[in-house]
């Protein structure tokens, strides 16, 4: 079997294997900081700067296809970084970097199309691109294009992903599974046609509103990218040492995404979202935070979907409406079932 002396694709898929790789190989790079550093394995780092926090995050983007319904790698990069900053409480980015590695032979017009997307997303989020880097690698040495973005922002209050206590309520800001299933129906040779679109969007405005409404009662935030809602809930449960009960029927899923998931045998709870956030709030605060989310165009379908509990710390329990079961974390890419 493929042993652990080689890096496998599963190590990049956002699930348990990836966390294991990070913990085994990269965690050794961590040094203590005054704030949230590498060791916390959060969406970014937060370092105390006077009476504020400097929030820093970085991401590399290797999505295929490069252009997909609803967006492209450019938009994905900007939103990904803006959202990571927002998840830690920095909703007004000071600046983003944009480093590009391009394969020899890459189309110039595609590159410009990506640049236009980056610009549009940057403006939408109010996050200026302030510096960058460009490299070209030989044909076949790289698959098309890789983008890396880093972001910097200031936050008055840092929200980690480890702050849940038993009793806290869990909200999602909108429909789940959109990005992952949109990509899935395009990428594999499944012969599916559909209208599924990625939800890729900058969330800083939405989060700003939620934080204004919830204040200190917002105790945990994370965006469910690779690995999906399931992965985020596992992380939150594990880091805070609580259990989480998720009400499956309360999770908003669009009918098209649900159908695509059924056809492919893939659970929307396990695939990536690029324009949604998971927010944990103290009991009693969910009403006003929900109202603030729903008042924003990106949060119309926001919903309360679960609760943190004291039992079974680290576990995520799915209440299907019929019975309860454990919600799994995927290992590697979810593959369509024989269907």
């Amino acid at each position, binding site marked *: 079997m493929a042993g652990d002396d080689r890096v496998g694709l599963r190590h990049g898929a956002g699930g348990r294997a990836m966390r294991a790789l990070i913990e085994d190989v990269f965690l050794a790079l961590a040094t203590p900081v005054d704030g949230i550093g590498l060791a916390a394995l959060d969406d970014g780092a937060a370092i105390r700067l006077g009476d504020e926090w400097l929030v820093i995050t970085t991401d590399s983007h290797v999505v295929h296809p490069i252009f997909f319904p609803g967006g492209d790698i450019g938009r994905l990069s900007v939103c990904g970084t803006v959202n990571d900053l927002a998840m830690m409480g920095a909703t007004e980015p000071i600046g983003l970097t944009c480093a590009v590695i391009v394969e020899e032979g890459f189309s110039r017009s595609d590159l410009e199309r990506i640049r236009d997307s980056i610009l549009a997303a940057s403006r939408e989020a109010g996050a200026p691109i302030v510096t960058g880097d460009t490299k070209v690698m030989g044909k076949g040495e790289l698959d098309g294009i890789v983008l890396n973005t880093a972001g910097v922002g200031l936050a008055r209050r840092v929200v980690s992903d480890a702050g849940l206590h038993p009793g806290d309520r869990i909200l999602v800001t909108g429909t789940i599974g959109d990005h992952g299933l949109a990509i899935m129906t395009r990428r594999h040779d499944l012969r599916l046609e559909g209208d599924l679109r990625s939800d890729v969007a900058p969330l800083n405005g939405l989060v700003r509103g939620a934080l204004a409404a919830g204040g200190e009662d917002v105790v945990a935030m994370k965006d469910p990218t690779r690995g999906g809602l399931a992965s985020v809930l596992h992380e939150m449960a594990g880091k805070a040492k609580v259990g989480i009960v998720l009400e499956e029927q309360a999770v908003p899923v669009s009918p098209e995404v649900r159908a695509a998931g059924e056809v492919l045998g893939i659970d929307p709870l396990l695939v990536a979202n690029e324009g949604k956030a998971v927010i944990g709030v103290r009991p009693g605060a969910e009403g006003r935070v929900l109202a603030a989310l729903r008042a924003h165009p990106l949060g119309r379908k926001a919903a309360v979907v679960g609760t943190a509990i004291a039992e079974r710390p680290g576990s995520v329990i799915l209440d299907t409406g*019929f*019975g309860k*079961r454990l919600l799994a974390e995927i290992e590697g890419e979810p593959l369509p079932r024989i269907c």
Partner: protein
Amino acid sequence: MPDLLSEMKFRDPARARALAEALAREVKAIGRAPIPLMHVCGSHEQAIARFGLRAVLPRELEVIMGPGCPVCITDTPEVDEAVALAADGKVVCTYGDMLKLPGTVKSLADAQADGGRVEVIYSASQAVELARKEPSREVVFFASGFETTAVATAAVVLSGTPGNFSILSTHKYVPSAMEVVAEMEETNIEGFIAAGHAAIITGWGIFEPFARRTGTPVVVAGFEPLDILAAILKCVELIREGRPEVANCYPRCVTREGNRAAQEKLWKVFEVADGVWRGIATVPRGNLELRPEWDHLNARRRFRIDTSRVGGLEKNVLAEQCLCGSIMSGLASPKDCKLFGKECRPETPVGACMVSSEGACKIWHMYGGVPDLRGVG
């Protein structure tokens, strides 16, 4: 759009609760425990696990998964044949689930990593298209699955295939396995839940002689939560009334005669033969092999397949501790296996049950086994 919404009616929690309560009463009326029922379909196990149905079934009722995972019961020599073909330069097309199934030493995924051409397909017709696109390569379709899937293979054969296309058939016939399990002394199964999609093709009539002969009721079930609960309830009713009959709880899809056109195609191309099902040993009439008139499409006739080159003669030590056989016959559950969750995990499977999305071990691992979560949260 009415269709999805209608199907959603088959997920109505209120009706589900009513069915579960009725089930509890029926089981109490029978007054003994355990009452073992067996289903023979990976998709049923998927649905049961996915919707957490075991948490609402009465504790006296055991719903056991029998040999219903087409990947799991594909024998190691059959995988070795496919691996050998890939190693020998043929393009092997396979359904995704078979990719990681371990042979004696290697899986098709390993063969791919070693430089062999292995293509994952989602429909038999894709294999034929591939053969047409690459006329200079020999393309072999590793045809796995039960009779429902075999019908698709038959359709593809009958609509004409190019000269470089052949089939390595590992199709299996479930009713024969039900006979084997029913005859095992240790199992004591009191009722069978039959797979709805296979019954669409075969019809429910084929179970009548089986029910009479074995004295066990058989209920055909669909795959939505209500379908399954209603079928289980019907089965328990028949047990209570001592009626070894066949009942159809999937009338929207299944009829007594089944799909005659599909059956004709199936038996034009395939015939039953005694076979070895992984972990269960011999199942008389359990395999579906290409009829002699299709020898020219039969990879086993067309090529000399030498599995010794891919470890066909080696011993696999871990595999000897694997409990898949007993699990597939319903004699053990995944938690009974020492390797479950440790040496045998989805990313490092030892046994077939951990490879396939229809395998009991994979499903249990993914959905956390059968922990009693009734009181939680």
